[in-house]
């Protein structure tokens, strides 16, 4: 492979790739990322390969293995180009039928089309699905379209043009100014001005500087970074090289959590390929700029997503954070100036350079520019990854794109910002989603997890869940976090088990104040947020648990029972059949009943009953 040594080399290669493409071929974009792979999409690919060979269709049909399309619950996903036909839940047995429609007859396999759960309408084309049509895809636009293991696919779609522009026509200071002017704020949760951070690092004295991509996406319920790393790894590499050039770094690290093996694989391939093509390593694109990258795997510690903890982990130690000052941008890895950026932040960089800061900043709100990728999960009709303009309202996201709440239930709250964030109730459903508004509402943007809850979610249990999580993940170094979380956990466990005490809410609030001002790092100081926000917006649930010993959402096992309403039950027997413990009894067509002594409250009967005859008491 001949290395690209100047700007015209890249453009020539791009033209060559595009010219060599057979425009008459049908391309089957098939997702092989985590969500679809879990649903056996690799077997679909195998079946496709075999069938294409069997029918001699190699010249007419091509399989493109892509990254995440974002609509994981519909996987395995396949999009037929150029018609843009969207198939969901594709099985190996469907392959024959799909191929038979490609003979020019213009047919589709209807049973594989997506049906809107509310309107019941079928959508033929990918662009018709509300999950996609209402998005404003920028950073994740390539994921699902290109083969992440094929650098030429990335180049053909415009990749590395931004890097080329930077290396050949921009000075480092100009790059930094562009990023500042764009208004880009850290997408990992901190929300600090990326350009400003770069400027501080660039000005800091040091014979050696580093740039680190934080791919340790630890927030439970968030998978934006997973998707980007799997589906468009080169965008992160390109963003890193541009950042390195801007601050004067010669070495970089991508820290990826080890629970993301596909992301690690795709990033490794991307690094190798870009080195081969002269887009990484020594004398990049003949510019004289040297920069090399290595991947470091996380080892199962959420705290290592915190900047100082991440750096200590990279230095080969256990991930206990340290206090600031000194700030990493001035004194970071091995004491040298270091920039740590979330991978989504870096994915924005090539866009800023290509479009220009002004065009980038034309999207979003005054204080929050550009777009943000969110993982919309939980009790919504359509779950998946969505990218929207900053300033979009919660209502537009949850009811517009998300299609509202499943199973005819009602919206209760949406949790944003993971364990550092908070729960937002229905009263704020029309609020703008941006850094500052979310903070005012008692939550934070965080990395982008948006977890929707309905009346079957217990808010005290949600607080307990996050405290449990943080207690497990705390490094244990400082007293406020280690001992504070232990006490909070104890109190919340008691409340959920029915032994809560009168003064518990006051104790929790007092502890919360102490932890937020005195903890060593962000994990401890933001740990109280879910507790504080649920007390603020759902105090009545805490009081119900403590005073009445009742969990009206049907979650805390000691505090409720499932009862079959004798008037609504028509004796269909579905619950009796599905009960894994066989504690439902009744004759056919006669009202059934549950033996509450033996019931383990797994909820299967409650969720299966089509007549809403099972209630929480």
């Amino acid at each position, binding site marked *: 492979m001949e290395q690209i040594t100047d700007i015209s080399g890249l453009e020539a290669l791009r033209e060559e790739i595009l010219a060599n493409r057979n425009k008459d071929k049908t391309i089957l974009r098939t997702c092989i990322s985590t969500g679809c792979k879990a649903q056996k999409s690799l077997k679909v690919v195998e079946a496709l390969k075999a069938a294409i060979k069997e029918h001699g269709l190699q010249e007419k049909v091509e399989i493109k293995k892509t990254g995440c399309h974002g609509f994981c619950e519909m996987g395995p996903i396949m999009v037929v180009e150029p018609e843009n036909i969207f198939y969901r839940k594709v099985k190996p047995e469907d392959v024959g039928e799909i191929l038979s429609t490609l003979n020019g007859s213009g047919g589709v396999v209807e049973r594989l089309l997506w049906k809107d759960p509310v309107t019941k309408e079928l959508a033929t084309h990918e662009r018709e699905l509300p999950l996609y049509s209402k998005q404003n895809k920028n950073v994740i636009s390539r994921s699902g379209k290109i083969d992440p293991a094929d650098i030429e696919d990335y180049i053909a779609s415009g990749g590395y043009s931004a890097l080329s522009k930077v290396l050949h026509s921009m000075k480092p200071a100009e790059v930094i100014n562009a990023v500042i002017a764009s208004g880009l704020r850290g997408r990992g949760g901190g929300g600090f001005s990326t350009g400003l951070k770069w400027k501080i690092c660039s000005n800091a004295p040091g014979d050696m500087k580093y740039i680190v991509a934080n791919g340790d996406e630890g927030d439970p319920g968030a998978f934006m970074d997973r998707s980007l790393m799997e589906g468009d790894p080169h965008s992160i590499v390109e963003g890193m090289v541009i950042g390195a050039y801007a601050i004067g770094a010669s070495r970089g690290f991508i820290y990826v959590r080890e629970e993301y093996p596909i992301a690690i694989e795709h990033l490794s391939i991307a690094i190798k390929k870009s080195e081969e093509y002269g887009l990484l390593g020594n004398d990049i694109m003949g510019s004289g700029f040297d920069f090399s990258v290595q991947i470091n795997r996380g080892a199962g510690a959420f705290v290592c997503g915190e900047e100082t903890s991440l750096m200590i982990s990279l230095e080969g130690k256990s991930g206990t954070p340290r206090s600031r000052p000194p700030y990493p941008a001035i004194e970071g890895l091995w004491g040298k100036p270091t920039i740590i950026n979330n991978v989504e932040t870096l994915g924005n960089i090539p866009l800023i350079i290509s479009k220009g800061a002004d065009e980038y900043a034309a999207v979003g709100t005054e204080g929050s520019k550009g777009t943000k990728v969110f993982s919309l999960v939980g009790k919504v009709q359509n779950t998946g990854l969505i990218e929207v303009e900053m300033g979009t309202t919660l209502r537009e996201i949850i009811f517009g794109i998300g299609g509202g709440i499943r199973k005819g239930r009602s919206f209760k709250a949406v949790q944003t910002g993971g364990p550092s964030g908070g729960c937002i109730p229905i009263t704020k459903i029309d609020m703008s989603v941006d850094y500052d508004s979310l903070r005012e509402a008692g939550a934070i943007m965080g990395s982008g997890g948006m977890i929707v809850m309905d009346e079957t979610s217990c808010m005290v249990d949600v607080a307990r869940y996050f405290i449990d999580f943080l207690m*497990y993940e705390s490094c244990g170094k400082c007293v406020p976090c280690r*001992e504070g979380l232990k*006490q909070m956990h104890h109190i919340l466990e008691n409340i959920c088990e029915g032994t809560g005490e009168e003064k518990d809410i006051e104790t929790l609030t007092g502890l919360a104040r*102490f932890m937020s*001002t005195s903890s*060593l790092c962000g994990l401890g100081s933001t740990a109280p947020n879910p507790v504080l926000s649920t007390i603020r917006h759902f105090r009545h649930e805490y009081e119900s648990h403590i005073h009445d010993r009742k969990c009206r959402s049907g979650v805390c096992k000691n505090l409720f029972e499932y009862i079959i309403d004798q008037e609504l039950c028509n004796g269909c027997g579905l619950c009796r059949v599905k009960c894994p413990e066989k504690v439902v009894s009744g004759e056919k067509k006669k009202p059934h009943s549950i033996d509450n002594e033996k019931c383990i409250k797994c909820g299967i009967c409650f969720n299966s009953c089509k007549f809403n005859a099972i209630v929480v008491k």
Partner: protein
Amino acid sequence: MKIQIIIDGHMVQVDNGTSVLQASRKAGIDIPTLCYHEALKPYGSCRLCMVEIVQNKQRRLVTSCNFPAETGMEVFTDTDGVKQVRKHVLELLLARCPEVPMIQTMARRMGIEKTGFKKIESKECILCGLCVRFCEEAVGAAAIGLSNRGTEREVTTPFKSSSDTCIGCGSCTYICPTACIEMIPDEKISGIRNMNMGRLSLELCSNDYKCTDCDIEQTFIKDIKSVIAQFRKKDKTQ
């Protein structure tokens, strides 16, 4: 270059690189600490030394042991906010170590009679890390360390087995604020001592934990220094 800061209304002049805690001590102002020691790098885990600072018109709580003094900074060591922090730290430690006399004494001296938190365990170690840090930074043996994470974090030797790198100097015993480490004679080799975790000294300190003018302390230190010196001599000849 000299730095000028104001601590509790007193102007203090210190060298560049001095921490707020060191500057306070120079001014004769006492800030309580648990995990700080002059011979070691500041650690910042107990949070007892937190003070309020005003810098660039912003007021916030910081740990004084590792916060650099800067010209123009104003420090407040005895505000309500600071007292609240100390109260919470001690109450949480009392809940963790309800039977440790040293913690009870320290709490009493700060006017804290009891803890508002549930005593869900009874530990002797407060995880200040002094023993571990001293063994690694000052002695150079790194025989004991921290293991596990979060609420399970503890001081142990690797695999909780008898250490083959411990030199028996007794530094960890000496430096432990709650006296929960002791030296026990090695079972097989005479003249050798090993550290042993978690044996609480139930005998109250005969000097009521006033360590600065203590004879016992002086003897202890002499003993430790001689063992370390022997270790260093042996190390050099190998």
